């Protein structure tokens, strides 16, 4: 340690946990315990990050195959078509059965193996202990298990490509009776069950950690919004995911034992290749297909908030840091997140307006759904209020955060249309819905994830990423994203259905082929633009400039830790003296004032911190 660090030690009258120091002095672990079966939250975060990035490329490839088929039906996929097996393609062109697998797997991978693990695996793991000033999660071994469930679940589902009949092909929503037979659907159900437990275990851990391990002086309302958002998301995970597990269990019982939970009596079976293996769904009897939808959506609606709420927290912290200004309405932001989370549990029926459930429920779900726009609007206004009269620095993380606001507004507004039952009658299962989904999940979640990845890269890896490449990645992605997804609103209004292998079978859809081609071209460009990000992340690991502790001059506790912290995180005692957003404070000559700087020593401690 340098002389500067010694200065810190002497400055503390407080306790230094001797046993804590002792543990970390004798901590040589095997390669396997350090990198493979690690219990360190930062390593686990990186494992989640790497796995999610891998699946992002897999899910992205699936999307490009779908887009190729929609633009040029029956044409061989360029470059890779000839390498795909004959069960999937014909002369390199996507076959209808493969198409239905692609739409299913694209969504399944992106939701369960990219966005959820990124937001609630990578970010939750990396940020929570560091931002609350502690050494690790409350339950490090549970944490390790929660990561390993993800690749195991992923392998389970992907193995569906190698079984008879192929992988799951009933959409990521997996509605029975279509999903009630086929080995691929069974593997999917098992895989989702497993990845659901990753989520539940993670959520439990984050709740325990946030409630019990905050640094001295940190009250709940001193926590940054990233932590608040993850805390509330954890409640969603813990309450909602078990219902998903129940749905999967029940469907599994129908698939394997033909119990007839979701299967009504006397259905006609295999007919013209409907069930690929000619399997009999079973005589069944008395089952209700709509029951699945209730169980599935009771989880899957909160799931979409699981995917966006952490990101909203991350974006809040990034915007404040780079506007050099407190988040506007911190408490209002917390209450808005709580409201979104609560309301998120009572709106699931808006996915089922046309399912055949009682139309009276359509009225009630329409009203509960449309008011969920209110807390989201509050957040948008508060973000605008944050940059108002700020001093905005356009770093890559901030560009992505600002881009998030822009695209999330669009996604939120398109949601209003489908919240309204009679309008949803028309746009349900059309590309209008697909446009909405991608504006909130890609425009929202993914841009927010990019923002967070660039923001915490210096802390995660001790290196700076390349700023020029970062900006280039942002602009290219933002432009191609909008050109790709905005036209989907148009064709949706035109009635263009989802999950359609060849739309031009329909006269009324023939005129949309040029638009589908336009979308595809920009989808391909957008896909390849992500290679810039991957290159930047990997290249900077080796060749990036060494990062200082607090390159962004931010206020939250993670920036008190060394760049690339070791096991145990902090090299000093942490006490919290103020909230997380004291930018432009009159108490300091600088435009920031970190949470851990002692009030009587602001000038000297900040000066010292900057020298690291």
């Amino acid at each position, binding site marked *: 340690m340098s002389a500067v660090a010694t200065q810190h030690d002497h400055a503390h009258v407080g306790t230094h946990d001797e046993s804590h120091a002792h543990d970390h002095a004798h901590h040589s672990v095997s390669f396997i315990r350090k990198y493979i079966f690690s219990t360190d939250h930062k390593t686990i975060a990186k494992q989640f990050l790497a796995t999610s990035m891998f699946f992002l490329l897999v899910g992205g490839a699936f999307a490009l195959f779908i887009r190729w088929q929609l633009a040029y039906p029956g044409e061989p996929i360029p470059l890779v078509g000839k390498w795909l097996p004959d069960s999937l393609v014909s002369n390199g062109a996507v076959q*209808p059965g493969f198409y239905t697998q692609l739409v299913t797997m694209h969504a399944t991978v992106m939701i369960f193996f990219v966005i959820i693990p990124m937001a609630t695996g990578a970010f939750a793991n990396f940020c929570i202990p560091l931002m609350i000033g502690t050494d690790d999660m409350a339950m490090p071994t549970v944490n390790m298990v929660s990561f390993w469930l993800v690749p195991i679940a992923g392998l389970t589902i992907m193995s569906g490509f190698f079984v008879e009949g192929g992988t799951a092909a009933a959409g990521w929503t997996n509605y029975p009776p279509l999903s009630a037979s086929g080995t691929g659907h069974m593997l999917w159900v098992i895989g989702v069950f497993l990845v659901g437990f990753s989520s539940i275990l993670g959520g439990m851990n984050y709740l325990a950690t946030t409630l019990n391990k905050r640094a001295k002086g940190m009250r709940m309302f001193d926590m940054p919004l990233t932590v608040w958002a993850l805390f509330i998301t954890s409640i969603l995970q813990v309450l909602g995911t078990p219902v998903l597990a129940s749905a999967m269990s029940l469907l599994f019982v129908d698939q394997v034992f033909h119990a007839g939970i979701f299967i009504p009596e006397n259905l006609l079976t295999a007919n013209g290749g*409907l069930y690929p293996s000619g399997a009999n769904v079973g005589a069944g009897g008395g089952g209700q297909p709509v029951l699945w939808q209730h169980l599935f959506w009771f989880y899957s609606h909160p799931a979409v908030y699981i995917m966006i709420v952490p990101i909203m927290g991350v974006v809040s912290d990034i915007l404040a840091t780079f506007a050099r200004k407190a988040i506007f309405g911190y408490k209002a932001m917390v209450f808005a997140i709580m409201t979104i989370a609560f309301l998120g549990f009572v709106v699931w029926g808006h996915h089922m307006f046309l399912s055949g459930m009682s*139309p009276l429920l359509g009225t009630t779900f*329409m009203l509960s759904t449309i008011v969920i726009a209110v807390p989201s609007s509050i957040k948008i206004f508060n973000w605008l*209020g944050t*940059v108002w009269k700020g001093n905005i620095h356009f770093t890559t993380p901030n560009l992505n955060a600002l881009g998030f606001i822009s695209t999330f*507004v669009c996604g939120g507004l398109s949601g209003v249309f489908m919240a*309204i039952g009679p309008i949803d009658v028309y746009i349900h299962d059309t590309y209008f819905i697909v446009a909405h989904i991608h504006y909130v999940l890609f425009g929202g979640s993914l841009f927010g994830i990019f923002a967070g990845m660039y923001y915490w890269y210096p802390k995660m890896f001790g290196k700076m990423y390349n700023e020029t490449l970062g900006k280039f990645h942002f602009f290219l992605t933002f432009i191609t994203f909008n050109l790709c997804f905005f036209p989907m609103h148009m064709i949706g209004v035109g009635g263009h259905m989802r999950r359609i292998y060849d739309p031009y079978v329909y006269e009324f859809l023939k005129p949309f082929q040029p638009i589908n081609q336009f979308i595809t071209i920009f989808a391909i460009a957008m896909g390849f633009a992500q290679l810039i990000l991957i290159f930047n992340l990997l290249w900077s690991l080796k060749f990036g400039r060494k990062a200082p502790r607090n390159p962004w001059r931010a206020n939250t506790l993670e920036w008190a830790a060394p760049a690339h912290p070791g096991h145990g995180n902090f090299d000093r005692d942490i006490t919290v003296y103020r909230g997380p957003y004291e930018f*432009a404070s009159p108490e300091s000559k600088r435009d920031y004032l970190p949470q851990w700087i002692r009030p009587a020593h602001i000038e000297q401690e900040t000066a010292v911190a900057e020298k690291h």
Partner: protein
Amino acid sequence: MFDFSWNMLTYFPPGISTYSEAHDDLFRLVYWISAAIFVLVQLTLVVFIFRYRARPGHKSIYYHGNNVVEFVWTLAPTVLFAGLGLYSDEMWKVMKYSSRIPTPDMEIDVVGQAFNWHVRYPGGDGILGKRHARYRSAQNLFGIDPADSHGKDDIVLTGEFNLPINKNVVVHLSSVDVLHSYFLPNFRIKQDAVPGSWIEVWHNGTKSGKYELACAELCGSGHYAMRAVLNMQADADFAKWMEGKITAKKAVLAAEAANPQPVAPAPAEAAAPAGEHHGSSH
């Protein structure tokens, strides 16, 4: 060649039902409100980004928020969105509440089967025969009760069907295998076809012509091809068409009477609830 327009309202296919205009009006209302909010927010963002960009001599202010402003921008959206929801409920009721279905001028059964649409008309006697799930088979998709004489003359068509214009038509919708969805874009109506349920859908088309029926719920690899054609006809033309079908059916029945085919064995057990055909679960 399609003319691309940034105004998404221009993409609607022609609306020809008695509620398509009201539906489109509601869509337009939401569209313009959303467009206004969209422009306002994006413009504000761009102006702020420019005005408050970091530059030499420029500073941020020390400011944590304003509760009055929070109250205002909580109340205003709540009033707007709740109002929109309450306002829209009338349209929802018109399209979907059973109690609001007008007295039918005509009733038909429609079932989805991967990957075809089948339509059943009442035939010469004007009455649809009773049906029940236990009678369903590949040869009897609707599960028509063989004992019911009214069912014998029922006409079943696949892939293409006709309806009269300016008549309230009630469709009893179901499926024989998996979920499908009955989507008539020009009528602005859609309803999932649920196996094990019969769900009522109503529509009244006001313009003759050829319209497409699409399946809008993924039902297997052939989902994309599950298309049917609906011919809307003026009364007189429809009556003529229907006569032709009835006559053809009579001929088929006569031929069968002359050459009886072996009857398929009756399906198994299950105590029989009365086989009504309004909103029953069989």
